[in-house]
């Protein structure tokens, strides 16, 4: 993975988060406390300001820095979770990482979220997007799919994961207190992760297309 890609991804994600303000904010108001969008936006803004500095680092260093920055700028439940993802990914990712290594590192990052959050699939959290995406990512890499194919496929997995949170009772996070009343609502963190996955995949697709 190249640092330049990471920097571009930050720009792309930031734009897409801004675009989805209304959806994300509404979901956390409905079954949370209404701050998820602003937390995420603050994280993105801080990262964006950091981009010149990040550009000078190796991908591994950049991911570590991103993790620490999210940790101190996002707050809330999502801050330490997203931070754990990046910090763990940084730890696992070698400079010579193959596509397979990236998929593995991604999965490690997602697993770190589950460890930090003591959570797993089906608890109506961001993991309902991230775990299926991580699985599919690994699977497609091992099946030999191209980056373009993977980037075209993952957004569908993310969208399905997001949609899967709708009928769920929440058992982790703030919505856990709601019981049956959480049913019928999407999870805010799942939505923002879906937006992020989408954004990064679109960036990959654009790059792959322009390379061809």
């Amino acid at each position, binding site marked *: 993975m190249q640092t330049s890609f990471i920097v571009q991804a930050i720009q792309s994600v930031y734009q897409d988060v801004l675009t989805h303000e209304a959806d994300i904010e509404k979901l956390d108001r409905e079954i949370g406390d209404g701050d998820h969008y602003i937390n995420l936006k603050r994280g993105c803004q801080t990262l964006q300001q950091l981009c010149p500095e990040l550009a000078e680092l190796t991908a591994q260093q950049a991911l570590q820095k991103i993790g620490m920055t999210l940790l101190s700028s996002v707050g809330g439940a999502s*801050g330490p979770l997203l931070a754990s993802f990046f910090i763990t990914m940084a730890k696992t990712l070698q400079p010579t990482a193959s596509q397979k290594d990236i998929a593995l590192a991604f999965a490690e990052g997602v697993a770190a979220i589950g460890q930090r959050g003591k959570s797993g699939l089906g608890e109506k959290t961001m993991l309902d997007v991230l775990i299926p995406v991580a699985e599919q990512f690994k699977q497609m890499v091992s099946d030999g799919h191209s980056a373009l194919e993977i980037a075209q496929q993952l957004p569908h997995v993310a969208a399905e994961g997001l949609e899967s949170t709708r009928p769920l009772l929440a058992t982790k996070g703030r919505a856990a207190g709601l019981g049956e009343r959480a049913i019928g609502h999407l999870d805010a963190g799942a939505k923002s992760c879906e937006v992020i996955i989408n954004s990064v995949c679109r960036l990959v697709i654009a790059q792959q297309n322009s390379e061809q």
Partner: protein
Amino acid sequence: MKKFINQVDDILVESLQGFAKAHADIVKLHLSPNFITRQHKAHNKVALISGGGSGHEPLHSGFVGKGMLDAACPGYVFTSPSPDQMLAAAEAVECGKGVLFIVKNYAGDVMNFEMAAEMLSVPNATVLTNDDVAVLNSSYTTGRRGVAGTVIVEKTLGSLAETGADLAQCVAFGEKVNQRCGSMGVALTSCTVPAAGKPTFDIADHEIEMGVGIHGEPGRKREKLRPANDIVEDMINAILHDFESRNISPSQGVILLVNGFAATPLMELYLLYHAASDQLKQHGINIQRSLVGNYTTALDMAGASITLCASDAEILQHWDSPVHTAGLRWGI
């Protein structure tokens, strides 16, 4: 949204600056990362640090001072503070006997304080508060929320720490007080998170949200607005029922805290107190100590919570001891 603000992004820091200037005799503000310490550092005691999202003032910054907290870490509105705040605060106030974090049981707070605790090099421990009986505890959830009972934990634990008790003693006492607290809240209106600009939930003119959380999280159920006495009866019963299920006995009496969520006037809070004291009398429960006012608020929400703390001699002694903070003051 109608609030006294300049820019939404500046609310927290401007408010902290006003707070620190208005109480410069008691507290000191540190920025980037944001935390509040006592104006005069304590010596040779367990350093008590709490924190959480802002919007619950005076909790926690208003409880920094002699007899209560050593530091508070305010997050953004309704957003847990981040570990760098807790680390910087710990560094500033640690004074030889370790650090005790008092954390309300919300996923975000727990995880951020947990990461800080993992990174911290001095001996430290954490007391989680989870006094909210509204959401039924069940094995598959992250557990109950920490609400206004936290004030009682911070006051009494603050007192114990002041005596030079060690970290283990503080943890044990903090956990005991927390276990003996039960709280139940009710909202008449929603709060509005400034950055969101709209009310967190919609509620009709004749409705109340029973069991609401201090961030406007939905509670047990949406009910019809009823006479205050009926509402209070249900709240007290919910707490007593919870006590029963956890084998907590209020037979030695209780500390009764009637806490406003911010927009409910004192006149109504005293009326609720009157109703609560009648209810407790019917249950044969003595009120040993009382506190009525806005102590754990929810931005601009109208509503209130009732907290009972099943007290004993030790708890009462630490409740009565001198305290000198912006939000609670007696004996000094």
